[in-house]
């Protein structure tokens, strides 16, 4: 039974006007876009004119870069690489970023043109096409004052309350379209303020972000000084009317037990300090967030039918405590890290999901692995409930031999095991021609929570690995990687091997295989788990500041991560071309 009350007629009238309001909002958005573009050109002309006038003798210079990814999709139903528009009808997709920056005197102006054609970056399970100016900005220094306008990348402390950055493989670009002012009272004390709206591909979110950040540097002692870099940060977020309307409309269908009175504004505060003394560096940051609306997929919601479902909006305070201690003792160097996160989902719009609309960035608490199989299971930073620690130790036995041990453990605040990793690596360099790396990794990964796969439970893996580099001559080298992943879960055990031949300074040839030696998962269309070979064949050519790579790739479904932000990507089959060029 539904127990809604039919009482508020005024609201009914308001809803009937929604269509007109929405049309008005669309017009406002289009006007906003034109307004921002016009502002950019006006500001650019003004600043360039001003700079050219005042610094006639100072000649400016132009720098830039071009990055291109192009994929040819070759349907292969044996590895689940099918069904997407790129495999079925588009066959080609790619992205490019052309970045130009002009410097003259104390003025810097930049522009970036982004293009996505049948791209699988925004949504790995679909196709996305769009193009336009992805970024523009201008920076100018006046004595102690620095000003910046346009799309701004920045962060406060380690980024817990605010970080605007770009990570292309995950289609994250949450730069702030606005202005920033930084005033340096002295070499050791500054204050910075900024305000604007967050970028959303070629659009902007309508909520606003305002921030303040001040840092103070202190030094005590002469010979071995103890230094302190203390910072304080503040973020004020106002969600848009549209976002609030969506929250209110959702809450309207909630039973009273799950309802709350939402507010437009929320605030986040951060206090951080870096202490350095001799070989010791200690960083600590505490962040608090005022009561804020966020969606908790694990929260229980009571439905009108009496049943409970998972997932609802909540309105709670949040906190993060993070600390990192690094030190060296003779041949030993260590880093200890700890973190506690509670209800720290801080987005520009609480209705956004996945990797969209992040204001905060919570540092990961695991090793960022680069080898293929050790990197296969990586944890996604949990913003609502996480407690974690990590130890990373390096010991140099001699000039030729070094050991690295990394241990990380991540749980929820309710002590549900999320992730464990023990990583042990040795590097042995007997002479200038040989370099041996070998080790073993043990991982426990809660696939149920990270990938929402039922019956997956904890994936347990043991991965021995080796990497041997032999320099045949000054110009020729050969490198061999071998890894074996032993696991009874998910896809089962894997073997990976890579051979790379380098012909300096221009050519690198590589071939690799990934083989499902003990398969546990039955793919679509198969009757039982099958042993499947995933080969790669590629060549890289570098000349001056240009780098071109072409690869034939068959790649299994897996997690792609960058700094603790991850997503599950489907299998890939086809040819990948990349071009990276500095202009």
């Amino acid at each position, binding site marked *: 039974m539904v127990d809604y009350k*039919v009482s508020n007629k005024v609201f009914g009238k308001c809803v009937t006007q929604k269509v007109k309001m929405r049309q008005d909002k669309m017009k406002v958005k289009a006007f906003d876009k034109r307004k921002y573009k016009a502002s950019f050109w006006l500001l650019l002309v003004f600043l360039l004119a001003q700079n050219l006038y005042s610094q006639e003798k100072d000649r400016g210079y132009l720098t830039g870069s071009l990055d291109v990814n192009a994929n040819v999709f070759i349907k292969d139903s044996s590895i689940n690489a099918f069904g997407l528009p790129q495999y079925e009808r588009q066959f080609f997709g790619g992205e490019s970023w052309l970045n130009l920056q002009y410097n003259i005197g104390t003025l810097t102006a930049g522009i970036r043109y982004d293009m996505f054609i049948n791209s699988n970056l925004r949504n790995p399970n679909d196709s996305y096409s769009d193009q336009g100016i992805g970024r523009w900005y201008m920076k100018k220094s006046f004595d102690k004052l620095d000003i910046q306008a346009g799309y701004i990348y920045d962060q406060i402390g380690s980024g817990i309350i605010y970080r605007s950055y770009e990570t292309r493989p995950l289609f994250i670009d949450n730069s702030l379209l606005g202005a920033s002012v930084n005033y340096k*009272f002295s070499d050791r004390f500054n204050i910075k303020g900024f305000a604007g709206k967050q970028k959303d591909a070629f659009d902007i979110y309508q909520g606003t972000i305002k921030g303040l950040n001040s840092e103070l540097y202190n030094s005590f002692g002469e010979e071995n000084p103890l230094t302190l870099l203390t910072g304080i940060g503040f973020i004020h977020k106002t969600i848009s009317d*549209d976002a609030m309307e*969506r929250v*209110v409309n959702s809450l*309207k269908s909630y039973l009273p037990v799950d309802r709350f*009175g939402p507010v437009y504004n929320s605030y986040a505060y951060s206090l951080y300090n870096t202490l350095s003394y001799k070989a010791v560096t200690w960083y600590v940051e505490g962040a608090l967030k005022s009561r804020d609306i966020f969606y908790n997929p694990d929260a229980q919601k009571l439905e009108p039918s009496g049943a409970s*479902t998972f997932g609802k909006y909540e309105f709670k305070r949040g906190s993060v405590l993070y600390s990192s201690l690094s030190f060296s003792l003779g041949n030993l160097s260590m880093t200890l890290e700890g973190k506690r996160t509670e209800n720290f989902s801080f987005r520009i719009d609480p*209705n956004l999901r996945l990797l969209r609309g992040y204001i905060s960035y919570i540092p990961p608490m695991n090793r960022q692995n680069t080898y293929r199989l050790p990197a296969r299971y990586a944890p996604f930073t949990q913003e609502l409930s996480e407690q974690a620690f990590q130890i990373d130790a390096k010991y140099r036995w001699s000039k030729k031999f070094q050991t690295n041990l990394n241990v990380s453990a991540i749980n929820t605040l309710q002590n549900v095991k999320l992730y464990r990793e023990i990583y042990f690596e040795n590097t042995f360099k007997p002479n200038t021609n040989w370099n041996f790396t070998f080790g073993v990794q043990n991982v426990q990964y809660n696939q149920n929570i990270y990938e929402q796969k039922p019956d997956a439970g904890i994936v347990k893996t043991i991965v021995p690995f080796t990497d041997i580099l032999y320099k045949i001559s000054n110009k020729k080298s050969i490198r061999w990687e071998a890894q074996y992943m032993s696991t009874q879960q998910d896809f089962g055990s894997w073997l990976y091997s890579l051979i790379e031949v380098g012909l300096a300074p221009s050519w690198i040839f590589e071939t690799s295989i990934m083989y499902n030696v003990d398969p546990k998962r039955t793919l679509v269309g198969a009757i039982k788990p099958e042993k499947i070979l995933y080969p790669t064949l590629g060549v890289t050519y570098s000349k001056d500041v240009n780098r071109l790579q072409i690869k034939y790739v068959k790649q299994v479904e897996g997690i792609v991560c960058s700094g603790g932000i991850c997503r599950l990507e489907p299998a890939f089959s086809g040819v990948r071309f990349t071009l990276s060029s500095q202009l």
Partner: protein
Amino acid sequence: MKGNKKIQFIYGLFSLLFFLGCTETPVPIPEFELPNTDRVVLIEYLTGVKCPNCPKATAVLKNIESTFPGKTAVVAIHGRLQTEPLKESKFDFRTPIATQLENFHSPFLGKPAALLNRNKFIDEPFKPVDLVDLWPSYIEEILRQEYLIDILLSTQYDPTTRVVTLQASLLPKNTISKQMKISVFITEGEIIDAQETIGSIIAEYKHENILRAMLTNVAGDDIQEPLIKASPLLKSFNYTIPETFKPENMEIVVAIADATTGNIDQAAKIKILK
């Protein structure tokens, strides 16, 4: 000393900001009011047996049906994503037409998602709405808008031939000059089979509104006849029900769309056996 005063001032200012969060008055949540309309909203639900969040979405759909009684028509599309049968599955709900329809509605962020009258809502990245909690409010919004056509449905079923004949009577509220399209969906419910959910498999899950066939194109067929005020237009369709389907659990859903925007104007549903 002078520098220290500046620092004290700045840090004092930050301390004051700390108390800002206490002052705002919460936005009141209005009570729900059922719109007084004969409009029916077409809900095209993108789902799959391997979609762990879909049981929650299905529960929300049930609540929507009881919140807006008779004002929704649901078609569950088991297309290409997360639809491969589970080890525990007895049936395969995928059909070429479901795949075609899901492709037609791409792109979308993930499942579950639903198209509500095929509208593109402002601030939604795509037509399919992936945030389940927003479905009731969007449906309410659609129900408060004007529409152009009423639909009356009747069926005749011949158990010998298993042929069902649908008569759809379209009643324009005003003369319509623009091109309109008609779509006809055949669905089946009450099928007990496995379904993935978060953390487990439900072996005996009741699947409802599964799309079995379409008697038109996925985008709808053009209505060639003029749509004149108060002049009912009769459209007739036949469908032979396969032996494996149960007519008593089947429904026909009809939707009329604006050919230019693709948005659904009006929908209607009828059980094959009353």
